């Protein structure tokens, strides 16, 4: 049995349903990210786990115990908010000690636990500071220590890095992951940043319009997106419209060029249109590049992006982007030039809507 179970969760605000039949099983110690654009329902699911929103239907269970009727303060769930939410009237020490004091823990035990937690986030020298005397990154680390101090069953992180600058975000997300692995705490992390989700999660739930479009490891989500939405939301992806020629042989046609897919298109009929996805980094113009498939087209543009050159080419009405690593010997193709893109057929994915 999974440690955290979300079964058939639904949530409506008035006549608007924001979460549709959400199902998820999370194992103990797993780090799960809910990834999706604003308004996709990821924070609502998180808030239902925390108890701040009541599900319209469905079941939430932690360790086999149903949580639906428990108040937020009885769930033993640690939460870190985007806006830090440190108590401005309390020092760092008192903020971290707050949950322990509420629980009636002995003073000596509180001091020891606070010291441990501040050591964990490497801020023990700032114990007497007030929140306004800390930087954003420091405040968020204190908020993390405060949430962990009560030894919660589950840690919920609601876009904790969104208010921080780019450099701090990277270092703090690595710190969060390291602490999570050290403590082995089951964690649910909400973000709209795909890089964040891909870099620190055991599994990712890509959410779209209140539904989980795909649940999988970062590798699965990136390499084999299940839907058009996942494909377009995670990373840069070429969407190619093709015509099915022979479903039984997985033969399709892009413009007037035939391609044999590795994935099955048996569910389609000859003449049907099928959506395919190809990552920009999967193709190459180099003749020596390993490939079993080629597409020829005209270069539309070539943009120098520093470490890579992103070239856009037209293949039968589809504009396909691909990246070449920059090196002194590489000359970007000129617009209008005819080029051949080489790639493995396995990289061409059939996408459902």
């Amino acid at each position, binding site marked *: 049995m999974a440690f955290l179970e979300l079964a058939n969760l639904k949530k409506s605000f008035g006549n608007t349903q924001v979460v549709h039949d959400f199902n998820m099983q999370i194992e103990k110690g797993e780090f799960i990210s809910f990834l999706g654009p604003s308004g996709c329902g990821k924070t609502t699911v998180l808030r239902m786990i925390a108890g701040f929103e009541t599900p319209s239907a469905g079941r939430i269970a932690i360790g086999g115990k149903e949580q639906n009727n428990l108040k937020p303060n009885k769930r033993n*769930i640690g*939460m870190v*908010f985007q806006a830090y*939410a440190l*108590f401005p*009237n309390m020092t760092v020490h008192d903020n971290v000690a*707050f949950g322990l004091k*509420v629980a009636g823990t002995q003073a000596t035990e509180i001091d020891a636990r606070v010291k441990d937690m501040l050591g964990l986030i490497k801020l023990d020298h700032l114990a007497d500071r007030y929140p*306004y005397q800390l930087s954003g990154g420091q405040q968020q680390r204190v908020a993390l220590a405060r949430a962990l101090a009560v030894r919660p069953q589950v840690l919920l992180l609601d876009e904790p890095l969104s208010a921080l600058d780019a450099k701090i975000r990277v270092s703090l997300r690595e710190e969060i992951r390291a602490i999570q692995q050290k403590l082995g705490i089951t964690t649910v992390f909400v973000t709209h940043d795909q890089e964040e989700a891909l870099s620190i999660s055991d599994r990712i739930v890509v959410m779209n319009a209140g539904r989980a479009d795909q649940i999988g490891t970062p590798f699965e989500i990136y390499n084999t997106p299940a839907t058009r939405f996942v494909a377009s939301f995670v990373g840069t992806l070429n969407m190619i419209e093709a015509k099915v020629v022979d479903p039984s042989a997985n033969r399709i046609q892009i413009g007037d060029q035939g391609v044999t897919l590795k994935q099955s298109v048996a569910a389609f009929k000859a003449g049907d249109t099928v959506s395919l996805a190809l990552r920009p980094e999967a193709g190459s113009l180099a003749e020596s590049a390993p490939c079993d498939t080629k597409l020829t087209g005209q270069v539309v543009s070539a943009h120098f992006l520093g470490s890579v050159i992103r070239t856009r080419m037209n293949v039968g009405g589809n504009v396909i982007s691909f990246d070449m690593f920059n090196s002194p010997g590489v000359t970007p193709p000129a617009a209008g030039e005819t080029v051949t893109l080489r790639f493995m057929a396995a990289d061409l994915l059939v996408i459902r809507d």
Partner: protein
Amino acid sequence: MKTSRLGAWISIGFGAIYFVLPLIATVEFSLRMRRGAYSFDAYASVFSEAQFRETFGYSMLMALLTIVFGMLLVVPTAYWVRLRLPQIRPIVEFITLLPLVIPAIVIVFGYLRMYNSSSILPLTGSTTGTNILLVLSYITLSLPYMYRAVDTAMRAIDVRTLTEAAESLGAGWATILFKCIFPNVMSGVLSGAFITLAIVMGEFTMAALLNRPAFGPYLQLVGANRAYEPSALAVIAFSITWLSMGLLQLVSRFHKAAPAKS
């Protein structure tokens, strides 16, 4: 000097004369009790009167009770409206503004009609009951100032997120309100308290019609029967108000120096 700046200085000068001159005249007059010399005789006379001490002490006590019970009403109300019922905020704001548009005499006549000795709740039938009624009426009078001061302080903190953070750490409502919210709106609470103190110390209508020995009716009584003492009392009353305003400024400056970031 530019013409616009000269105009501004002239305006300020006129304003200062309009406000300061009567005050200087009052202070000067209060010092002229002894013939041919300036003295504090009028002040000595005021302070030596038992009635002054009694009425001043009584009004101070009433002000204190008004502040305590007023805040116990206003802080949870403002908190609840911000957290759970933001849609009724305009209604609550309208209700809290009513004491500004309904004259105090109308309110007190309403109270006398509702709580007289032959009513279901005969508060005016006993001294304690009347004192309670007076505190309640002062709470009503200070509601517009108290509510706004507290509500403004709450706007500066993220009430919802702080509440949820405290809840997720296991805190109940009382702990959240008194340990997480109340200390962070203290500047608003103190601002409201000082304004309330200033209002209650000079209030006449409620205390006079409820026949309580407050400072306001005493000021009126002395003003009607003496020459120099009313000026001394006016200066004392002004000083109390100014002291309150000064403390208010100090509190807000202290709050600015240590902003409550959430």
